[in-house]
């Protein structure tokens, strides 16, 4: 432990030195030092007093088949996230974080867990493109697409506000992803737990065993 701390401290000093070379910016030279002490985070999960009911979503899965969310995930621990695949940063980060954590579960629990990604950009996310995007992260992940109003209504039932993709003047499409992943209990099929996009693979790894059992982290 001591060995690790020493070089880190030296690095901070080095960073401070490089920044003070021009003498202009005292504020910025403090930045890296503040970051070091950011680890005092208590818990990643937000547990709700009033859980969400699973949204009544009937959409199309990545095989082009009808998928009734309530029926297919009944009695299964389920994570739901709304995003889109033309999203280079946050969407793959969240799904890959969950993929990493899922691998640490015992095989039987992995088989129980349902991870559902609902597209917020159904026009561009076809079942096929959604399928290949999810497969690169975890082949078991379920991808759903359909009519935007149905998707938006489903998201709203669990407190997630999304707007339809908008075409800008220059032709680029601006889409929107949800702010949270919601975990549903296998016991009650209710959503008790929220995770923000800042949730790390370690946070999920710590919480998933409880979520699979229907306990709150």
């Amino acid at each position, binding site marked *: 432990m001591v060995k690790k701390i*020493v*070089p880190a401290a*030296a*690095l901070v*000093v*080095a960073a401070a*030195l*490089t*920044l003070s*070379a*021009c003498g*202009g*910016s005292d504020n*910025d030279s403090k*930045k890296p030092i503040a*970051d070091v002490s*950011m680890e005092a985070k208590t818990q990643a999960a937000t547990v709700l007093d009033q859980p969400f009911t699973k949204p009544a979503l009937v959409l199309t899965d990545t095989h082009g088949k009808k998928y009734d969310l309530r029926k297919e995930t009944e009695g299964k621990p389920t994570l739901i996230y709304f995003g889109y*695949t*033309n*999203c*280079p*940063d*946050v969407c*793959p*980060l969240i*799904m*890959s*974080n969950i993929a*990493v954590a899922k691998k640490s579960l015992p095989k039987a629990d992995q088989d129980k867990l349902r991870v559902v990604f609902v597209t917020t950009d159904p026009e561009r996310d076809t079942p096929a*493109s959604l399928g*290949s*995007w999810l497969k*690169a*992260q975890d082949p078991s992940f379920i991808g759903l697409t359909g009519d935007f109003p149905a998707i938006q209504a489903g998201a709203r039932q669990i407190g997630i506000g*999304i*707007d339809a993709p908008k075409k800008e003047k220059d032709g*680029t499409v*601006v*889409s*929107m*992803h*949800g*702010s949270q992943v919601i975990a549903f209990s296998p016991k009650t099929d209710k959503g008790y737990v929220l995770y923000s*996009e*800042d949730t*790390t*693979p370690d946070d999920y790894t710590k919480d998933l065993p409880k979520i699979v059992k229907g306990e709150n982290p």
Partner: protein
Amino acid sequence: MNHRTALAGVLALTTGLTLAGCSSSSDKPELKVVGGFMPQPVNDMAAGFLVVRNNGTGNDRLTSVTSPLSDDVTIHETKDQVMREVTSFDVPAGGELDLERGGSHIMFMKLKRQPKEGQKVSVELHFEKAGAVKVDLPVKETTHNPKKQ
């Protein structure tokens, strides 16, 4: 003081020396790019992250990025769960431009190849005053997020 600390000390000194030149001319940006990386992409688009420090006395702006990886490279900010292309990012004198996960980033579309973890992707950052700066972005795992470590 052990061997490793001594080495770090020498490093710090060297960096200090290289930057000391900036007092001679006024209103000049002195840019340094650090902490760059690209998370291994999951489809034919990728994001790049890095920090540009400006130790000079003049403001600068990042206006574009080019790379052999893609002919379609743009810069984006993310606000309220929406990602938007911007025409430039400020790199203020004495400050820094942070392109970090969940925030602003470089976006590479229609990748010519799929970069894998452990490889490097070279990019050229174009600044309004400082001109072009070449950096190599190491490809990290998809979940790489330095601010969370």
